[in-house]
Every structure is written in structure tokens, then in C-alpha cells.
């Protein structure tokens, strides 16, 4: 239960950061996805099932307050949670560089689903072209956290 509340707090902080500080550090309108980073860490730690359900509920909350089509973020985050869960520490225990690569791909998948459903008449090429900068920014930001976690928390080392 304590762990559950802790993750709710983490997601809440990520959402608050996303709508406050993260929007301030955007470069040409491209900003990282803090919620995705937290979801990624949770899915890596606890696997597919936790990733899917967390992604679904977090996405649903974002949908409620974003004013867009209900269910889009829920679907995107669910898929991302499930995808990242495939590489969980229990199964593969990936190193930090590999984790960054997974997050980069997860970010592209997230944006791909989001734009595909939310934006009408957009081509796959356009989606990927738009997603890459944002995915890169998210990956770079998460790299700091992941490397810090890897080097300063001995239990996280392989």
C-alpha cells in the first residue's frame, strides 16, 4: 500500500512538473514527457502488468484534464507501459544505455499512437518526424536520472 501511494505521489509530481517547469524548458515547442519517464521507471521496476494498469489510469487522468478525446492518452500510455514492461529488471535487467534506448522507442510509440488517434489526416512519416525531437529530449532528460540511479544506488546495478 505504501509503495502504491509512493507511486501516486511520483506521478502527481510528474504531472505538476509537466504543466509547470517542463513547459518552461521547451525548445521550439518541443518538451520532454515527465509522466512518461515515471511510467517507464515503474514499468522497468515492476513489469508488464503494473506498467499497463498504471499507464491506463495515468493516461485516463491526463485525458480528463487535457480536454482532448477521452481515452487517447490512456491507450498510448497503456501500450507504452506494456512495451517497457517487456524489458523489466526482473526479466532482462537492462543497463542504463539500453534503458535510454527503450525509453526513446517508447516515447516514439506513445507519440505515434497519440497523433494517430488525435490528429486527423496525418501520415506516419509526419508523426515520426514530429515525435523524434520530443523523444530525444525525453531520453536526454531521463538519461541524467537513469545514470544517477545506476551509479548512486548500488542495488540498481546489474
Amino acid at each position, binding site marked *: 500500500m505504501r509503495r502504491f501511494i509512493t507511486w501516486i505521489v511520483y506521478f*502527481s509530481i510528474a504531472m505538476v512538473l509537466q*504543466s509547470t517547469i517542463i513547459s518552461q524548458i521547451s525548445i521550439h515547442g518541443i518538451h520532454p514527457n515527465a509522466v512518461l519517464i515515471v511510467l517507464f521507471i515503474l514499468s522497468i521496476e515492476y513489469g508488464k*502488468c503494473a506498467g*499497463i494498469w498504471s499507464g*491506463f489510469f495515468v493516461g485516463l487522468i491526463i*485525458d480528463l484534464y487535457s480536454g482532448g478525446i477521452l*481515452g487517447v492518452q*490512456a*491507450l498510448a500510455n497503456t501500450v507504452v507501459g*506494456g512495451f517497457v514492461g517487456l524489458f523489466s529488471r526482473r526479466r532482462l535487467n537492462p543497463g542504463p544505455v539500453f534503458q535510454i534506448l527503450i525509453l526513446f522507442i517508447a516515447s516514439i510509440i506513445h507519440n505515434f499512437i497519440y497523433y494517430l488517434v488525435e490528429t486527423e489526416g496525418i501520415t506516419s512519416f509526419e508523426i515520426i518526424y514530429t515525435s523524434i525531437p520530443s523523444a530525444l529530449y525525453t531520453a536526454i532528460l531521463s538519461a541524467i536520472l537513469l545514470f544517477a540511479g545506476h551509479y548512486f544506488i548500488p542495488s540498481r546495478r546489474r
Partner: protein
Amino acid sequence: MHWLIAFILSHKSGSSLFVTVLISLMLINSGRTEQKRITGILTTIFFPVEMVVNNSNKIRNLFEENQKLNQKISVLQVENASLQNALVMDSLKTDFRELSEEIPYNLLQAEVISYEPVPIHRTITINKGRSDGVKQNMPVINFEGVIGKVSMVLSNCSRVQLIRMPDEKLSVLHERSGSVGILKSNDGKNLTVNMITQKNIFPGDTIVTSGLGGVYPPQLPLGTVSDISEAQNPLYKNISVSSFADLNNLRFVNIITLENKWTSYKTELDFLDE
């Protein structure tokens, strides 16, 4: 039914993914009215989260508001600086007008465009030159008092040598007693006058130009006596003078367009010097 539960339990991840994706797709494909209804229900359930999001939105609004206020402050600061400048210019114009009425000479107003790049400058450059009628040795004053004289004239600017220049020697007059002395600056900072001993010289007395020497016209205010000390020669006294004009902060000055009184005797004077 048992087999279904067993299947779900054995394929937790797959079933979870199936269920969540199915719900998401149902939500996406539901109609606008349906979505509003679901949003209403979910908003009630997620009320605590709403509070967090609302507060975070307030913080974001604070950021934006702060940014806007900062921009406004910048605009106001620029406006304020411009108004201050207008006030200074207006005050300078008034000073110039009053000075022109007070002094029976033609004045030419000039702006200081550069100072000598040393901590205590002894020369300044002004934006009036030969083309404006400026000539060498013309006296320069401001509304407070004497500043110096034009030492070099170029076509569009001139250099003014301040009274504290060590080379400068200026004939001055103790206004009350009428004693004449030579004002000079040995260190380029403090002004002193060597004057024949007079008992009735006191700190605070006014020193004006004597008119001797041919450069400065008589009775131009120069400064006040700030200190009196004994000189090496017992006949004289060293009088420290505090200038009326603030020589460190000059912005606008006035040139007295007066020909040097001794110009016509220049050849003879040069001959005598030799």
C-alpha cells in the same frame, strides 16, 4: 467460468492489456455526449487529482503572470528613463536660458561627448567645433561656474582643458577684497591660489575670474575658499579653492564665443616670450 478466471490469472499481462486497450478504444469511439458523461463521473472519482492539477495550473498561471509583469516592468523602466531624460533636458534648457540672460556674452551650448579615460579627467571633448564657430582659448562655463577653456579645435568637435589641468594658470580675484592671484592645480585634482597675504580672506569667500590674461572675461564665478594655509614665501598664502562646477559630472557646457582679448597682440607677446 472457472476456465476463464484461470486463463486470466495465468495470462495477467495479456488480459490486462486486452482490457485496458478495449476500454480505451471504447472511450475513444464513444460519442460526444457519452464522453461528457464519463468525464463527469471520472472527474468526481478523481477529485483529489483534480485539486493537484488545478493547483499546478495556478502555478503555471503564476509563471505566466510573473513573465507578463516582468515585461511590463521593463516597458515602464524604459518609459521612466525617457521621462527622466526629458526632465534633465528641460532643466538644462532652463539653466542655459537663465545663464544666457545673466551673462552679457554670446553663449554656444555643447554636449560633452567623451571624457579623458582616466579616473580624474582633466580634459573633455565636446560636440561643437570649428564649423560651429568655436576657436581655441574660448572660455567654457556651465550654469555653476567656470570649467576651463578650449584647448584644441577640430572641424566638428573640440577639446576642453579643465581648470584643474596642471598646465592651466588662471588669473583670479578674491571678490570681497579685490586681491588678485593665480589659480593652478599642482596635482591635477585640487585647486590652489597663491595670493598676497590679506587678513580678510575667510573660508567660504567667493573667487571669480579677474579678466587679466585675456582668456576669461572678468567676474565669472569660479569657486569658494575652502582652506587657507601658510605658503613658503611669507608674503603669500596658499588658498585652497573648491570649484562651483562639478568637474566630474559634466554633461552640457557653454562656450563663451569671445575672441581672445590678446589675439591682436599675439605677435608682440610671442616676441616678448622669446
